[in-house]
């Protein structure tokens, strides 16, 4: 009798350990994925801010050649404000779309004022801007990869369960609205 009891006890303990371990790792996994998404977004946000910071300089350089293109500059300022006032990731993504529209119009000015292309200050400015845009697309891609990992996992049977347990919800992809797909690519 005793022996049987021990065996049963042993099995129960083993089961508890296994299930416990499984639960902990499942929970941890979901939490880690969520944290990765947040970190990735922070990277994107940082690059977006960096882009905003570069713009005033760019505007100053261009203004010297295109003083009467005031409208473009105003749109940029408005979009920038909208971004910083946006309450969540979704809002920020939308505001970024507006900003990118305005930015592409600014860049088009190069065509109207070709003297800009000979200006080394302007060219250096464009290097910085392009660099930021490039960094942005790298971080966007990494963000979307992290989101994909999380969202796919949340959709799986166990992932769904653990996500509920940990209070983790699906994340928003960073989609570039169709209209902006071309902006702000710079071609000399």
């Amino acid at each position, binding site marked *: 009798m005793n022996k049987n009891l021990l065996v049963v006890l042993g099995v129960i303990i083993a089961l508890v350990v296994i299930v416990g371990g499984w639960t902990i790792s499942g929970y941890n996994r979901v939490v*880690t994925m969520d*944290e*990765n998404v947040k*970190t*990735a977004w*922070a*990277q994107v946000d*940082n*690059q977006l*801010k*960096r882009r905003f*910071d570069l713009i005033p300089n760019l505007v100053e350089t261009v203004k010297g050649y295109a003083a009467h293109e005031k409208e473009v500059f105003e749109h940029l300022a408005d979009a920038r404000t909208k971004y910083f006032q946006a309450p969540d990731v979704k809002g920020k993504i939308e505001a970024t779309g507006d900003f990118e529209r305005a930015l592409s119009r600014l860049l088009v000015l190069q065509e109207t004022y070709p003297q800009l292309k000979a200006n*080394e200050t302007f*060219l*250096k*400015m*464009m*290097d*910085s801007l*392009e*660099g*930021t845009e*490039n*960094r*942005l*697309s*790298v*971080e966007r891609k*990494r963000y979307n*990869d*992290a989101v994909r*990992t999380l969202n796919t996992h949340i959709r799986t049977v166990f992932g769904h369960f653990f996500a509920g347990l940990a209070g983790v919800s699906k994340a928003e992809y960073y989609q570039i609205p169709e209209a902006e797909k071309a902006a702000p690519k710079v071609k*000399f």
Partner: protein
Amino acid sequence: MALKSNLLKRLLVFALFWLYPAFLPAVTPPIPAQPSQYVEDLAGVLNAETRARLNARLKDLEAATTVQVVVLTLNSLEGEPIESFSHQTAVKWGIGQKGKDNGVLITVAVKDRKYRIEVGYGLESILPDSLVGSLGREYLVLNFRKGDFAGGIVAAVTALADKISGGQVVSKADEGSPPHPATTVRQSGSPGSINPLTAVLLLIFILLITINIFRKARKGGGGGFFWFGGGGGGWSSGGDSGGFSGGGGDFGGGGASGDW
């Protein structure tokens, strides 16, 4: 007899493993294979002397500063934007030391007349985009327009090396980008990389052969080991002195592109 057919079967299996990547859909253009040197002249625009000189220069640079600078020339990007090609290649080759992310990749697409200087996270403070852009315009564009690829690349590498060894190299980027979060965001190992897998398979393969050889050469002694000694220099067969092996550095997309 049974031993031989067993070995043969194993050989077949491993051969298939290695050939498998060939059946995968091609990425145009595919990321070139990991180079064993600092200069990978796929477009053939540099002569042997220039390559050797550059290799030596870049090897010294790495020895002195741990910064890895790699030069890649190829014919065409086949429509792929140079930014994404350059970034993927730099990351795949792991240029720069892991953690320090201090790598630079110079890509020149000769037929497309495009170039890009890709700068790792860790070098962004001493090689900001505007500096790299100016460097490209000054050294690469002017020389490339004359058809002088060697001159342009050597001049650019010299300027970069001076900047790198002149400034402090070790600290991470400061130009507004945050400290790069280690490896949490990235998937472990890109889908295309098979090197660790290949290495493991190769090891097992060799082990099996060794065991089989030992079984046969029980009396003769360690006759099967001689070919391990030959591989002492690493897997790369290098004609020139070289020895670039990726340190696992990461890239955030900094740098500058241009055309001529």
